[in-house]
Each structure stands twice: as C-alpha cells, then as structure tokens.
C-alpha cells in the first residue's frame, strides 16, 4: 500500500482525532467545569413552586473538627455537648442541583451564650464559603430556630458541603439536638404540548 506524504499526514490527523475523542469522552464524566456556578441566588423569581424535602441530622452524629476537643452525649443519646469547646461538623450529602432554602437548629440552651450552626462549602483547594446561618436563642432549655431564607444550590462537582455547630459554651448548658435542612429537588424544565385543549 502506497501513501503519499499528504495522505499519510491526513491519516495521522484523523486517527489522532479519533484517539482524542475516545479518551475525551471517557474523561468527560470526571471533569468539573472550569468555573464554579454561583452557589447563592437571592431571588426566587425563576423557580416554580416546589415541595420541600428534609434532611434531618441528629445532634450526636456531629464530631469535633479538631482532635483537641471532647464530646459527650445526653442520656437519650440524641443531643451532644462539649466541656472544652471547639467546632463540630458532619458531612452533608444532597442531590446534585438541589436547592437548600432553610437550616433549622434544635437545641438545649440554658446558657447566657448562644450557639451557631451553619453550612459551609469547600472547593478542595483551601477555599470555603459559609452559606446559611442560624443560632440558638434564650435560656429556656429545649428550643428550635430557623435561618433566614437563603437559596443555595448544590453543585457536587465543585463543592463539598458540611454542617457545622459552634456551642460558644463549654458545658451541658448548651447542647445540639439536631439540624434540619429544608431543600427542594432540582427544577427540571417541563414542556407542555403546544395545544392545551
């Protein structure tokens, strides 16, 4: 078989293209977009009405972020507290594209201080963003508080998410009993038939 030089070059280019497309398609599923989509959108104007879903984490499922701090649970095993201090967290997994709307904290608080809970996103390169905050209030004992509405979109290709709690008190007077996220599933565009009747 004889190939002229230009035919050889053309064949090489075509085969190289085939190779690049084959490898490229295999890698496409693990490549993240170069630019991370915006996580927080303050408006709700583009969204259709949606039903809430809930992710509810027991307080005693959190653990200190740093090994220097201790943790203890109450008799029921549901609430957690520390006698040293520190910051507690737990992994947060939600469906891709889901929209987080609220964070609710369930607590026991007879302390003069108030605790904080929030969601943080991490990009894997040392950067983070604190997204939704809520705090305990008062000294009445068991209670619950809801964050302001904050629309946060889940982008699992770009960000990991954790739930955080900081007691701001080192005693059983401040306990975390639960954190509940209200979210909605991704909005999919639905196309109705052109003729409606």
């Amino acid at each position, binding site marked *: *078989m004889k190939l*002229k030089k230009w035919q050889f070059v053309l064949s090489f280019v075509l085969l190289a293209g085939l190779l690049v497309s084959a490898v490229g398609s295999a890698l496409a599923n693990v490549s993240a977009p170069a630019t991370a989509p915006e996580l927080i959108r303050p408006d709700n104007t583009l969204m259709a009405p949606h039903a809430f879903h809930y992710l509810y984490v027991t307080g005693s*499922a959190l653990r200190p972020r740093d090994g220097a701090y201790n943790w203890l649970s109450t008799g029921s095993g*549901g609430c957690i507290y520390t006698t040293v201090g520190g910051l507690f967290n737990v992994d947060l997994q939600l469906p891709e594209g889901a929209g987080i709307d609220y964070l609710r904290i369930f607590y026991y608080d007879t302390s003069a201080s108030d605790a904080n809970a929030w969601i943080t996103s991490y990009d894997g390169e040392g950067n983070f963003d604190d997204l939704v905050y809520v705090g305990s209030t008062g000294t009445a004992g068991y209670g619950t508080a809801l964050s302001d509405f904050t629309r946060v979109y889940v982008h699992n290709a770009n960000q990991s998410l954790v739930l955080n709690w900081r007691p701001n008190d080192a005693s059983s007077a401040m306990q975390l009993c639960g954190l509940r996220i209200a979210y909605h599933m991704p909005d999919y565009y639905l196309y109705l038939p052109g003729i409606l009747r």
Partner: protein
Amino acid sequence: MKSIHFSLRTVLIALALLILVPGVSVLAQDFLTSAEPGYVSPEMAFAGSPTDPDYIAPSINGTDRAVSYYYLFVAGSALRPRNNTASWNIDSSGGCIYTNSANEIFNVDLQLPDGATIEYLRLYYYDTAAGDNRAWVTSYDGADGFADLITVASTGTAGYGTTLSPLSSVVVDNFNYSYLLNWRAVTAGETSQLCGLRVFYNLPTP
C-alpha cells in the same frame, strides 16, 4: 512528492491498537482480578440467600411493581463513640471496629428517603466473646425524645457472622425525626467487633 510505504496489515494493526488501547485502560479501572492480594469473591463473602427475608432478587420487585427494595450498608469502622471517653480501634481490613471500653455506644447518622419503610436491620460482626453485641435504629425528635425502633444482636462465638432483626415496618419521617444507627459491645477488646450494618427498606415507586 515523496511516498511512504505501509503494508495494509501494518495500517490495520496500528488502527486496531489506537482504538483498543484507550478502551482497555478505561475498563481496567473497573475490574479487580482474583490474582490481586486480598481479593475476595463477592460470591464467597456472605453471599445472600434467596431464602433470606432481606434478599433482593429481581423477582421481588417484579412481584409488586408499586414498591422497590433497597439496601443501605454502613461499614463498621464508620461508627464513632457517642462519648469521646471511649476508645476505638479497627481491624486489619479497616472495615471492622472494636472498643476497649465495654458497654460504650457507637453511632452514625442514618439518612433514608422520606416515606421509606425500614423492614430489617442486619448486623455483620466478628464475635468470639461470651457476650453478644447489639445494634439498633433510634429516632429522635430534637427535644430529647427518642424511640428505639429495630434491634438485632450477634450470636455465638464462632467469629465472623451475620444476624437479621425481626421484620419491622418503620416509616421514615424526615420532617419530625432524625435517625441514628447504634452499636454497643458488651465485651471490650477485639473479640467483639462490628463489621457492618445493613438496612433493608422499601420505597413506593412514584
């Protein structure tokens, strides 16, 4: 213009290599072979039996098309003590956990779809101790109220084993309750280990 000579066979072989090599390298990431150290055939490792109540076979979902069955399987070493005063250690595989503090409770967060029905909890263990260890699911209401829902315990002293809880019908309610998987070893030391907890649940199909 200069000509370069290739046999048809050479061109075909080069073409085949260019197409096959990337494909093989991608597939190679998905398969482990029995030649690799530590390989355990899935069929040999606690193979599910069609007679087990929590066995999922295509025919189960086929029987009632309005319901689908699923597993949630947590490695033993994913649990942590409820109080930091308890120690914890793992076995050589990294999958089983034990404690040197007897009677301490270990837990891990349990997330299931709202409306799912938990039917069984299966305990995977290593047990050569006289005492048996125990696992269970607990729900919490956020104000210190709780309910222990499903319990299962290890049996015997034969080493690795698995036991299944009685049939339950706990419906998951994520608005009102959070859920935990718990484990307690009544015996300290590596003679009583937790190797896994598997929840068998069903979900109505939309």
